[in-house]
């Protein structure tokens, strides 16, 4: 039987997932048409992992993404316009067009754009989570439980019943787990029971390197044991499963239960970037994963429940396409090009330091 309330919740997950897909496919096309520069990192195929996680974010929760987190950002509320401003390197972009098109971030939504240095972001998330713990402690909500000698306390604290902390969201791929930064972050978070959720998008390939060339254990989640935190491997293409498992981890983190490593098995349909033919994979493997398209998995579940509604889907799709069309029209016709020298004025918050940089530049070109 159709449960209308449940159905509404499901479509609230479906909408950002479809928006991510349509936006992503459109941007691939725009890039291939040469309408913006750089390259493009498609996340098609990984929407469920992103949206299933991103919908759990609250204001003030930091998202430390990798370079394939369009879905998490859409779930957090980024508009198509803002995304287009970034890929087209427009003045309205959250980064002022100073970065690569796909280093998505948005300070307004507490999203820290990634660096090209894989896994550096993973450490930043632990630091933000430590700040959340300090917030709660300063508010008197954290009780430190010293050991019986009164010497050490690390990780041994309790949060006041009913209090909830902010939570940091860390995304990374399977390749990133080979880096020392991954270890140092999870180690730190594990020691202090920090409110952070680690989401590993295991899409089997780190650019051209296969999972087994980066990870010696059967599962990425096996690594969690080394950091004293729960680790779980789930179907990253089933949005209901992702949403449920991440939700439990987020709740636990907010209530002082510590971090979780969640490995989401998923797949990127296209190359590492648009200039990568991805010829290191077999066609059979790609075809197999396309059968597990997150949108099809959603549909199958909804059909099973008798809640798949073509009319609702068509309406959502039309609304999304309208937003995307508008965003493209705006970015191509109305947005502003950045000033070629504006980058000289934003390296520091202390304006006199930007003046030092500018003077040097003017001396060269003046």
């Amino acid at each position, binding site marked *: 039987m159709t449960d209308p309330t449940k159905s509404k919740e499901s479509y609230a997950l479906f909408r950002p997932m479809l928006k991510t897909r349509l936006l992503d496919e459109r941007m691939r096309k725009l890039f291939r048409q040469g309408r913006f520069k750089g390259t493009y990192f498609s996340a098609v195929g990984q929407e469920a992992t992103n949206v299933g996680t991103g919908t759990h974010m609250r204001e003030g929760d*930091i998202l*430390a993404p990798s370079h394939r987190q369009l879905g998490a950002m859409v779930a957090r509320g980024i508009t198509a316009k803002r995304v287009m401003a970034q890929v087209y390197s427009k003045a309205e*972009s*959250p*980064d*002022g067009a*100073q*970065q690569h098109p796909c*280093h998505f*971030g948005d*300070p*307004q939504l507490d999203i*820290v*754009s990634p*660096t*090209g*240095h894989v896994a*550096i972001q993973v*450490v*930043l*998330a*632990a*630091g*933000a*989570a*430590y*700040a*959340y*713990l*300090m*917030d709660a*402690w*300063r508010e008197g909500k*954290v009780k*430190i439980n010293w050991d019986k000698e009164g*010497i050490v*306390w*690390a990780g041994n604290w309790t949060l006041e019943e009913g209090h909830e902390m*902010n939570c*940091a969201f860390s995304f990374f791929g399977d390749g990133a787990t080979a880096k*020392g*930064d991954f270890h*140092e*972050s999870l*180690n*730190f978070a594990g*020691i202090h029971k920090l409110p952070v959720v680690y989401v590993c998008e295991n899409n089997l390939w780190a650019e051209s390197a296969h999972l087994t060339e980066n990870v010696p254990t059967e599962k990425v989640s096996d690594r969690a044991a080394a950091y004293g935190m729960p680790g779980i491997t789930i179907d990253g293409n089933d949005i209901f499963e992702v949403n449920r498992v991440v939700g439990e981890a987020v709740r636990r983190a907010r209530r002082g239960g510590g971090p979780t490593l969640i490995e989401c098995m998923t797949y990127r349909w296209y190359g590492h970037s648009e200039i990568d033919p991805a010829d290191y994979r077999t066609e059979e493997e790609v075809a197999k994963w396309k059968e597990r398209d997150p949108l099809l998995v959603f549909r199958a579940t909804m059909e099973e429940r008798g809640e798949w509604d073509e009319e609702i889907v068509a309406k959502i799709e039309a609304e999304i396409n309208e937003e995307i069309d508008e965003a493209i029209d705006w970015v191509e016709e109305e947005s502003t090009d950045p000033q070629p020298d504006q*980058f000289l*004025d*934003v*390296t*520091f*918050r*202390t304006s*006199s*330091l930007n003046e*030092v940089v500018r003077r040097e530049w003017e001396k060269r070109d003046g």
Partner: protein
Amino acid sequence: MAEMTLIQAITDTMWSEMERDEKVFVLGQDCGRYGGVFKATAWKSQEDGSPDQSEKMYDRFGPLRVLDAPLAENAIIGGAIGSAIAGYRPIAEIQFMDFIDCAMGHIVNQAGVMSFKTNGSWCCPLTIRTPFGGDIGGGITHSQSNEAWFCHAAGLIVMTPSTVEDAAGLLRTAIRCDDPVLFIEHKKLYRSVKGEAPTDPDFMVPIGKARIHQSGSDITFVAYGNMLIRAMEATRILQKEGVSVEVIDPRTLWPLDLDTIVNSVCKTGRCVVISESHSSYGFSSEIAARVQEGAFWNLLSPIRMISAPDTPYPFDPAMEKAYLPSVETILKAAKGAMEND
């Protein structure tokens, strides 16, 4: 005002900033219960300027604000950056500057670019304190002076105090600054340099302002840290010989106060730059290049660059002595400059 050591002024400044702003906190290896390997995060001073050992920073501010971080430079710096984004003002200690290379990616490609990559929406109010320099028998990985790496990167302020007053004033500026600051402390100076600390709890030294350590008219020395101490020894000897030396301590290595340095060389016509870091692409070559640009027509002799050889840092005491620029080296260079050859 009480006379105290340079390291005591550092501790006192952190202490007073932590009293003032609850968002300021300290993290690093052995920083908490142990008070740091150099005791920089241990005790504030008492009236006579000596440490008041009745209460540690850890006990005063609690274990979360004086965090015993894991032995992991990436976690310390990367974690500090994350906390800065979440509203805090971390003071991260890297136990020896030699170890800072481990966290290079976080410093250069996260802290240094945070404002830039958010088009100025976010900043990164991070202070990294770290002891640098040799002459302590520390050998290959406890003696390095790697400041040039950071001056060469974008988005970072680099400071170093060589007096007690500057230790207080510069560190306060660093902590209150909204941009990332690498604050390097010469470990040889920690307890050998003493002086009166400013009593004003808001005393600050501006970024990018050099200090004329001693005025003179015949020749300009530019140096900081232990090399400033050696430059001053050479200055006293030269003075007895009738040579008047102007000694400039840049205090901030990036951005440089070129005006003060160039003006001095325009006046004296001679310049010796002394540093204990490697000679290639280093502090000495930077100052020499910029001074010749600004004071070319006033130069009476070539600018002399004194620095360490481009080798790793040796341990054996005789080798360490040979490695570091000595007072004699400085005298020789100065005399050459005075003879205009």
